[in-house]
């Protein structure tokens, strides 16, 4: 299997499922932590990630289709395209992105790492990828952090477009924006991004 990427907790390989091109995200054993903790983390995170992807997809947002689930692995559709971070000028519809984020949050999914490195642009379609840090929750803070991480990586004009459509499409958006302002005022608890 060809390795496509490697993060702190999982590796992504190219594979085939019933003859169709696919990728598998495998949470590998970490030698640094004790076996009990290692297995619990890998198992619960794999399950949670798959659940978040399915929920987001059911809410009408494009995510890679989940094809199969192992104890520590998720098989998913291979989405070809370019990561938003590699698109010159990030020229995409941020209004669409705002609507996608609104639908995802309305379905109680927070992404946890919503940056241009985790949006795949495929033709005119955008896919949200890598739900590895996602959560199923009604936390306003987590929603605000999703907005904040993207805000830090795009232009002011692009953010305005994103925030405008998010506000229209999501009933709780007022609370999220007010929390976002709070987070930005905090000193110690600043959220950083490298994307």
């Amino acid at each position, binding site marked *: 299997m060809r390795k496509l990427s490697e993060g702190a907790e999982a590796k992504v390989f190219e594979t085939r499922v019933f003859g169709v091109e696919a990728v598998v995200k495998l949470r590998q054993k970490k030698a640094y932590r004790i076996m009990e903790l290692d297995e619990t*983390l890998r198992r619960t995170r794999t399950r949670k990630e798959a659940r978040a992807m399915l929920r987001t997809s059911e809410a009408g947002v494009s995510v890679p289709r989940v094809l199969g689930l192992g104890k520590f692995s998720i098989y998913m559709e291979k989405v070809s395209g370019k990561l938003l971070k590699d698109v010159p000028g990030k020229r995409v519809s941020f209004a669409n992105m705002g609507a996608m984020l609104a639908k995802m949050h309305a379905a109680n999914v927070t992404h946890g790492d919503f940056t241009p490195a985790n949006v795949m642009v495929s033709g005119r379609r955008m896919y949200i990828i890598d739900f590895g840090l996602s959560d199923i929750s009604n936390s306003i803070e987590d929603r605000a952090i999703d907005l904040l991480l993207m805000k830090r990586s795009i232009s002011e004009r692009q953010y305005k477009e994103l925030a405008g459509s998010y506000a229209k499409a999501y009933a709780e958006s007022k609370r999220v924006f007010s929390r976002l302002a709070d987070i930005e005022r905090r000193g110690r608890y600043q959220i950083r991004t490298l994307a």
Partner: protein
Amino acid sequence: MLTMGIESSAHTFGVGIADNGKVLANEKLMYDVGSRGMIPSKVAETHVRNARTVVRMALEKAEVGIKEIGGVGYTKGPGIGACLQVGQLTAKTIANGLGVKIVPVNHAVAHVEITKHETKLRDPIALYVSGGNSQILKLTGEPFRHYQILGETFDVGVGNMLDAFAREIKLRPAWGSTVAKLAINGNYIEMPYTVKGMDFAFTGLLTYASSLAGKKNKEDLCYSIQETSFAMLCEATERALLLTNSDELEVCGGVAQSTRLQEMLRSVCKEHGMRFGVARNEYNADNGGMIAYVAERMLKSGKSEPLDRCDIQQRYRIDKAVVV
């Protein structure tokens, strides 16, 4: 020229003497935390009593006279205000008496820099773990040369968390190192694990583990709280290493003395073929040697301050400190 460094941010009053990048003396006296933890006024009183003695110990160790000291540095912060003031006053008194230059030093920068010096790593990611601090750091040149905070604790430092737990289950002395000793014979109990990207939080873990005090045996609790908190640090650190394409890691600060944490971080580095480094324990614990080492470099590049601008700052964050 010799540079004297004075450290007093918490329970340790330390005096070091540096000579061209070499630490000639690194002496200290500590406040005994017993089972109560640190009471700021009591710690400061102890430092006042110890200050002269430790300065003398350092001079004797380096076999030099006070007149040979050509510059002074002291810890400006972060730390406990009452404690920092004792070191500040000692440093200002000496600098004023000798008529030499003085420079305030960031405590965290000193830990990271002395470790870099000791381990000969070039541009490592630094995991700085002590009582009050737990941060993942990287040196950056923009907009000035400083340590950027890639990730850090959302609440308390890992050391204070383990010390607080030691007090909760009535260990003596109430230190994280006592937790480590009991952990050797423990079995795993599942506990809250909170990592968000490169940041992490410890109070949920502390509250949960403390709620089991008296219900589960101490060894199991010590083992589980230590394994869980260190695994959190390792995961966040590994993410920082991969995201920045780094190939070197250092760990520094009081908790870096933990052999279990060292072993776990070494394992992270081994998996990716990265280099790992940790300083000798005398530099991981709070000490004046590291302050002398950094102060010497700062004075050489003209970073001294006039006496009336030599202040202290309890929350002197590492990303606000210029690194020379």
